[in-house]
């Protein structure tokens, strides 16, 4: 009997490897290996002309493995980089808060709309997200640029109350507007997914017990929606933290984030070890936060 089971499971195992082998191999070569090489690169010396110095050096005593913690030392000794991380953190947090403020009423409205309207309302939130990322960022150059109808009207109004004309493009403000615009759907969707499951009877009960509209929201709806809030905040905050194209296009010199410095290390300064250190710290922070968010979400559910 045992041999029959084995005879059946051997081709089964063969099929498993035939099917999962090729994608596994591809991702090992073109995803896992590059990431591991980058981890190793963060411990290597920068090359004389950019890139990496040789891993081994040869002298009369033999071959020597050249690994160093110099790049990590540089990161932790120079407050500039800690400040930069803090600044990126602040931009990403501000983005999450503004997204929450815009997304919450929208998600609530969709969740409380008749079932037949919900799909189309959600689709309308996702649709802009499918247009090219750069186009969506570019649009804000037009809107926030000094020539734009919007900015001239705004400055006209400000002029009436005696405030000088403001510049919006190439400022941290423009960066946060761009970040909010690009990440808004990531906040709406988890909020909607949560709010949609709320039992309307809870609100009826609260009303019967004399709660007014504000109390019903603040004491019933909002606490129940917290898992959606956390999920949305994580989905906005984490990608916003590592972005480089938005500050690059909208931020000018003042609005740069950690992603811009990583890009600079790889393409301009060509200090790969230090760029790798920055990427690894960024990833550690992002993965750590994602893990924390998942943990909080699981505890909330219990």
């Amino acid at each position, binding site marked *: 009997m045992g041999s029959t089971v084995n005879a059946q499971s051997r081709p089964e195992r063969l099929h498993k490897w035939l*099917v999962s082998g090729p994608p596994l191999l591809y991702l090992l070569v073109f995803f896992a290996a590059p990431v591991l090489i980058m981890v190793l690169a963060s411990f290597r010396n920068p090359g004389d002309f950019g890139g990496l110095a040789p891993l081994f050096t040869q002298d009369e005593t033999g071959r020597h493995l050249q690994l160093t913690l110099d790049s990590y030392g540089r990161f932790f000794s120079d407050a500039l980089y800690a400040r930069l991380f803090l600044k990126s953190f602040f931009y990403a947090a501000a983005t999450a808060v503004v997204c929450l403020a815009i997304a919450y009423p929208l998600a609530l409205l969709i969740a409380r709309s008749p079932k037949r309207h919900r799909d189309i309302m959600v689709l309308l939130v996702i649709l802009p997200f499918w247009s*090219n990322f*750069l186009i969506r960022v570019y649009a804000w*150059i037009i809107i926030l640029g000094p020539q734009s109808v919007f900015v001239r009207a705004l400055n006209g109004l400000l002029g009436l109350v005696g405030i000088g004309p403001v510049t919006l493009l190439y400022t941290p403000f423009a960066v946060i507007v761009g970040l909010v615009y690009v990440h808004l759907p990531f906040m709406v969707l988890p909020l909607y997914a949560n709010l949609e499951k709320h039992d309307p009877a809870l609100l009826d009960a609260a009303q019967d017990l004399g709660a007014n509209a504000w109390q019903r929201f603040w004491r019933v709806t909002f606490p129940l929606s917290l898992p959606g809030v956390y999920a949305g905040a994580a989905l906005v905050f984490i990608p916003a933290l590592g972005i480089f194209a938005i500050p690059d296009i909208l931020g000018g010199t003042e609005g740069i984030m950690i992603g811009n410095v990583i890009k600079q290390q790889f393409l301009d300064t060509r200090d790969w070890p230090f760029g790798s250190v920055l990427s690894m710290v*960024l990833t550690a922070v992002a*993965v750590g936060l994602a893990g924390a968010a998942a943990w909080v979400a699981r505890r909330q559910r219990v």
Partner: protein
Amino acid sequence: MSRRSPWMWAAAFFAYAFLYAPLVIVVAYSFNDSRLNAEWVGFTFDWYDRLFHDEKMLIGARNSLFIGLTASAVSTVLGTMAGFAMYRYKARLLQLLVLAPIAIPEILMGVSLLIFFVLAGVVLGLTSIVLSHIAFCIGFVAIVVRARLAGMDESLTEAARDLGATPWRAFRLVTLPLIMPGVVAGALMAFTLSIDDFVITFFTAGIGASTLPLQIYTMVKISVTPEVNAVSTLLMLLTLALILIATRLAPGVLRAE
């Protein structure tokens, strides 16, 4: 009892306006007879005309098309296999490798592939871009295919096996036709993601090759003209068409996953 208050409607209206106004503005100015994206001067097709005579833009578009078609073809095959393996065999390592590229910061994947290709002696250009795009598209195809498999009636494949079909025949004649809408939707998704990708392409392109998004980036950085609006409008139309096809083939593909 309706729980939708007027302020909720107002806030939602603002949110939708915020989402769509920028795109409407980009499209509108692509027809404006002025170099500045400011005052409305008059209607024109000039920017489209200029776009179709812009050598660099055309090369970028051709490269994007080639990369998108190649990367989506390969990643659809590999992604379908991965989705099937994840569903049928609960392959843990594969699952991790499939989902990780979606979860980590995009810039990390870009720079690590840059190091990898340079150390491996691969000249940065079309080849390195295609290889990178396949790597990040596999996961998206796998997720869509696995979702389709999860919604499938398992007993159909079992019946085919009971009737003596080999696993391959059962897959080809029963499972594959049933999950085909998921596979096609995954392919369209991969194509869209590849055509749209900026960050990973930016790091793996080198000076050898340019794509449409890279070309848009250069234009946006150097000189903002309504030609960017024109190419943006055309790209939006293309994406919209692909989405319509995808939703036709697999309703629910675009919903929150």
